[in-house]
């Protein structure tokens, strides 16, 4: 099934197939993600949603099909045709990632964790620290920059991870069960802050979730089942 919208897509997937040995994870998915939208990808475990996210982000090269990225003001790139080093660079500069677990470097302070993507992109450290601190403040983590991940609550650590994903001002934020390990209150807090920020900056979000309440924060949701899109889109706003 093909799911599209009326505005220009920032990411387009066409005919994505991907297998892990005998298991077919994706079976010819077509998907457009519009610039600035928050897209929720839902589906049962093993349906292929994480594989879809990894293909869209250039982590996996699909066995067949193509993913095209059209950054604002630049010409389109077929991600699946790029070499790993180019894809890594693209993930660093244009994409941000938030995961469910274990994403912060345990020995680094919160502010250092956030500044790593900027340092990797070549920003000078003082500037990286300044921008990281500002973002932590924006995500209501002011005063916690010097703490280690082990000294933060689950919600605080997840907001640090969100800050790290957003600090490079990515065009697309990929979130894989970003609140899956949090209680409902912390989950709501993280999502609210994250979505406030992305809507202000016009960042596109592709968010995988099991949770209908989380999906309700999205502009649109798609359901993946057995490696294909199982339901159409829904505009929530």
């Amino acid at each position: 099934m093909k799911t599209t919208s009326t505005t220009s897509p920032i990411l387009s997937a066409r005919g994505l197939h991907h297998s892990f040995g005998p298991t077919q994870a994706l079976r010819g998915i077509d998907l457009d993600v519009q610039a600035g939208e928050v897209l929720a990808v839902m589906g049962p475990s093993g349906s292929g949603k994480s594989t879809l996210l990894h293909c869209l982000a250039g982590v996996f090269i699909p066995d067949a099909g193509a993913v095209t990225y059209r950054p604002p003001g630049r010409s389109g790139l077929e991600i699946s045709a790029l070499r790993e080093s180019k894809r890594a660079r693209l993930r660093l500069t244009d994409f941000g990632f938030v995961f469910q677990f274990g994403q912060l470097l345990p020995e680094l302070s919160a502010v250092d964790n956030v500044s790593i993507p900027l340092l990797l992109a070549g920003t000078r450290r003082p500037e990286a620290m300044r921008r990281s601190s500002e973002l932590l403040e924006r995500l209501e983590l002011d005063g916690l920059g010097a703490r280690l991940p082990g000294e933060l609550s689950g919600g605080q650590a997840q907001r640090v991870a969100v800050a790290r994903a957003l600090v490079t001002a990515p065009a697309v934020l990929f979130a894989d069960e970003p609140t899956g390990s949090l209680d409902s209150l912390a989950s709501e807090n993280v999502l609210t802050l994250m979505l406030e920020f992305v809507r202000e900056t016009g960042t596109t979000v592709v968010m995988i979730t099991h949770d209908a309440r989380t999906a309700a924060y999205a502009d649109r949701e798609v359901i993946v089942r057995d490696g294909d899109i199982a339901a159409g889109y829904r505009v929530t706003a």
Partner: protein
Amino acid sequence: MNPGLLKLAVVGSRSSLGRLAGITAGVAVGVCLLLLLWGGANGLSARDNRGAWLRETGSPAVSVPAASDASVPAASNPAAPPASDPSASQQATPLPLTPDTVLMRANPVEVFRGELINRRDFAALGSTNVRIPGVGRPPAPGRYYASPALQRLIESTPRDQLGDRFGEFAGTIDDAALPGPDSLIVVTGATEAELRQGGTAFLVSGFTTNPYGGSAAAYVTVLLIGAMAVFFPVLLLISIVTGLGAAQRRERFATLRLIGASPQAVSRIAAVETAVPSLLGAALGVVLAALLRPVAAQIPVNGTRMFDADLATGWAAGTAVVGLVVTASAVAAGNRTTREGIGPLGVTRAVHEKTPTPWRMVPLLAGLGAMTAAVVIIRVLEVRVPWLESPLLIGGFMLILVGIVVIGPWLTLCVSRVGLRRARSAAAVIAASRIQRTPVATFRSVSGLVIAVFVVSVFAGGSSIIQTTEAPTARPGLLQPASLHATVGTGQTPDQVTAAASKAAELPGVRSSVVGYGPAALHERDAGPEIYLRAADAPGLGFEDIPGTEVVAVDSAFLRFSTQPLALAPAPAGTLDGLVPVVMVVGTDGTPEAMDRARTTLNRSGVTATPATSPSDIQLQSATRLVQGLAVLAYLGMFVAVAIAGLSLAVATASAVLDRRRVLGLMRLMGMPVSVLRRLITREAAVPLLTVLLLSIGLGFLVAWLMVTGINDAYRVTWPAPDYFIALGLSLLLALGAVIATFGLIRGNTGISATRFE
């Protein structure tokens, strides 16, 4: 304990099997080396015990009148001609041989091709009860017993260069009296008159079994220090390898806790799952050690290999090592798991290292203080307090050794703090942060290398003084390095000595043969302070500035390997009339064949009272030769220690990658290039290594200087031999290689699959 649960914990996945294989292999290598090193230490001790009889010095062969304050004949200074001890020849009365005694002369300078031969000459009554170790009854005059290695040499060398020195072959010395299969030992038979002639023979009624004499404590201490340098990295390797994959195990244990296992059950599982591969590895190590023993015995230490049996540790030692390693690794794994407080949702308590504090400087400073105090007492206050000096020097050394390990984490922490402040790149920030949070664990991975480098620096510094002070030089006014000299016995006529000198002069490779004269034989009371010779012969001794008289004189110190050139003076008398020949000096072209031929001829001439000696012989006899030998042992030890430490570093680095595979995988997923991860891993190994390595080298030479100045303030520590720099370079290369070897792990273990939770 539920076997199913245990099986799930131990071999739950393919990565578990890999980890178990890693532990098994690491423990096998560690146990194998431990047993070989233990065997080596036993072997050194066993061979010293077998060779103890060679240290027998006996009792004086003459009685000295009580009124005289002269001592017994000074045979213990082999480099000098027989002492001009008046009592020896004029006042002393020979003590007669009895069936319970033999007359023994130890020839301290029996040298062949730069190798010292342990020679003992014996004269005995036909009814003697004394038995020589490895030989039995003393050989008859003109016959000899040789060690197998020496006999092989004799048989493969022209007789005029070696065999003629000893006489007729009577048999080989039994292995039970030989330090090692390469030992060069000869026991010759002589007449009582021959041995009494030079005044250097002693009466012996039995042979000592104490291999070290008065220096036993120092010798054992030096061995212990060397053993520690090697054992430490081995133990470290076992410790590091049994902690392999700790992070993966924590997750597995958390799962077990989630499904109902108690903390005690998880600790027991941790202990058992470490004990099983440790036991396998230890058993494998015992087998490996047994297989490698004959190979290890071929490594020459202090000039000789060992007998295979020397390296055997016995079943008790093997069982003890296996039991100890398995128990220690199991208990450590169990305790580690308990300490980490693994709950159903993973590690419930963050396990933080205790931050190292400046107090860690104390042992190092105490060690330096103790050694400095010893030097101040000996050199500045000039007070000899033997019961205090050795403990201060050796205790200080041990404190410094421990102090380096103790201070390492604190220094690493300090450097990482500075590094974090100055860090500009992502790799630098991550590496410095990790080191700052875990300085003890970070330093542990390189501590084996650091200790090995320290100990070998001490030995390199210590052995450098010997080269400085003892290398013979060819300068006018000094005895030439390629010459041999022997003092002439009492009663030899000028014609006899001149004939012997002429015979020596005809030997191939001999350039000069000079006879020196004096008022009496050099070991007699009337021997004057000078030696006289014909001015025409002076160039043959290397003199250039020769007075215009027919006869010239030189101080007899000329024969004592003076380092200060001596000048010739015109002799008061114009002729040699009235003087007797006192010394023969033969100059050669320096080739080993010419030297050995001249030595053999002089010793067989029948006119000499002492064995022919060359200036370079002193290096072979020096007490410091032990240190040189031990320096070789230290380099060997360093090689082993560095290899093990390199392996430990590789395992620790691999472990650092594997334990962080998920988070590093996520970093890669977010766009961190593999090259940054490589730089990160390299920095994490390089920072602690370089921080403390420089300190180790500096301290090593400082300690060497303190030790040698504690022994003799005439010594100077200079640049070490090239071997040291080669060993150091190899160490760094090995460390680099160990880190590079883990690069392959980075790409494979930080892929997307590493980011998934099982």
